[in-house]
């Protein structure tokens, strides 16, 4: 089933996964374009094709879609420059240090997972003590929090790990300010201070940091396997594949990864990450490392098998060009699970009911 998906084939091994077998004129470029676009990976696939100097071999009409997708990610990269500079200017004045996270960090620091990466919001991490000063500094420089109802405000501030997202008045871009990478109400308790201790400072921008390469992997794994948002599942798996290749495989840093995951109390998401990147994108991760991670995460093999099945279904986004049986059920189970991980039970049920009410009445999901 996974091999049915052209986009999965194309993402393996920096895009070389299936290229040996392709007849460039007869290939179904249209399906690849549609699948890739649906999972927000068209720019990445296009980027690989461009790096491998294969665009010219593709017929003109599909080729134009790939070229246009590259323009989109180039434009995204330009906007990172503007956004990060503006955020830095606002926060640096108030001496608030911040760590750039996810897509913005990949693009800014130039790692492989920044290639063809599209994203809308800029995510940053500040310390708990500087959370409110950060919010104030941003609001003095053109950002404002969208007016949300009292329940949603409480949800963000007290139960989750964010102040509400802030939008810039004229650029209409959004910054999400975090002080932890998991909600404080979760069972897992990674200490943010440890992330700061290993963060890399960015040249010429005092107070601006990105996570260390190993921590980038761990954060990305936690975001995917703890947060329960699967629509970008394959995109996150692709990011992890590139981060792991560059940050761990190249320097053979497996011990470092597992030790650090244990230190941050995040072995389980890291186990899932290496298990599924190997399964889906054939990332060359030694089996013994996966076995070791599973045992460190204290997962019995029955549970591991169930999660295997659920996640395999959930991570693939449905599309007209192939079908995934049981996907919505799998996603529902995992969605409930991720809320269970984030919140005590007494908070969980009323919150979920309110979310479904919003959905049924047609209001926008957040």
């Amino acid at each position: 089933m996974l091999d049915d998906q052209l986009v999965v084939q194309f993402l393996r091994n920096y895009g070389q996964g299936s290229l040996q077998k392709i007849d460039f004129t007869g290939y179904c470029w249209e399906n690849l374009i549609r699948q890739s676009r649906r999972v927000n990976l068209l720019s990445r696939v296009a980027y690989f094709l461009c790096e491998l100097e294969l665009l010219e071999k593709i017929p003109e009409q599909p080729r134009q879609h790939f070229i246009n997708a590259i323009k989109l990610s180039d434009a995204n990269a330009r906007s990172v420059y503007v956004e990060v500079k503006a955020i830095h200017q606002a926060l640096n004045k108030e001496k608030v240090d911040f760590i750039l996270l996810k897509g913005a960090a990949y693009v800014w620091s130039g790692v492989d997972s920044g290639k063809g990466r599209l994203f809308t919001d800029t995510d940053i991490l500040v310390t708990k003590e500087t959370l409110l000063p950060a919010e104030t500094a941003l609001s003095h420089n053109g950002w404002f929090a969208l007016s949300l109802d009292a329940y949603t405000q409480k949800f963000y501030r007290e139960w989750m790990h964010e102040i509400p997202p802030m939008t810039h008045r004229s650029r209409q871009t959004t910054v999400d300010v975090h002080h932890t990478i998991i909600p404080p109400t979760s069972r897992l308790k990674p200490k943010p201070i440890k992330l700061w201790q290993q963060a890399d400072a960015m040249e010429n921008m005092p107070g601006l940091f990105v996570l260390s390469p190993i921590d980038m992997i761990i954060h990305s794994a936690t975001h995917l396997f703890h947060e329960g948002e699967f629509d970008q599942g394959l995109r996150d798996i692709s990011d992890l594949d590139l981060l792991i290749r560059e940050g761990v495989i190249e320097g053979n840093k497996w011990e470092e990864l597992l030790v650090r995951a244990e230190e941050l109390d995040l072995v389980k998401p890291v186990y899932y990450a290496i298990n599924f990147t190997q399964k889906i994108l054939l990332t060359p991760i030694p089996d013994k490392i996966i076995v070791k991670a599973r045992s460190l995460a204290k997962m019995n093999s029955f549970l591991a098998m169930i999660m295997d099945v659920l996640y395999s279904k959930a991570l693939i986004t449905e599309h007209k060009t192939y079908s995934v049986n049981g996907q919505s059920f799998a996603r529902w189970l995992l969605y409930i699970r991720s809320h269970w991980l984030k919140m005590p039970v007494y908070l969980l049920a009323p919150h979920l009911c309110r979310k479904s009410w919003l959905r049924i009445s047609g209001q926008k999901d957040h």
Partner: protein
Amino acid sequence: MLFKVYFWQDESVIYNIKSGDIHLLSSFDGKVLDLMSSNTKQEVLIKKIIEAYQIDYQDAEDYLGKLYDIYRKLSLID
């Protein structure tokens, strides 16, 4: 180059390559920007400003200083 400039009669339009912003300047100010980016000496620029606006040296130096500030703020020069 950090920018691109197009000149028409007495106006010019500047495109900031890194940020994507565009700016409308007088043709003269656009030419000064062009010269600044090719590291033309300040003295030469001051002389041009004096010729163009028929003002004294001090005013011309102040004007040039203002232009440097604006262009740096707009990230059009380093």
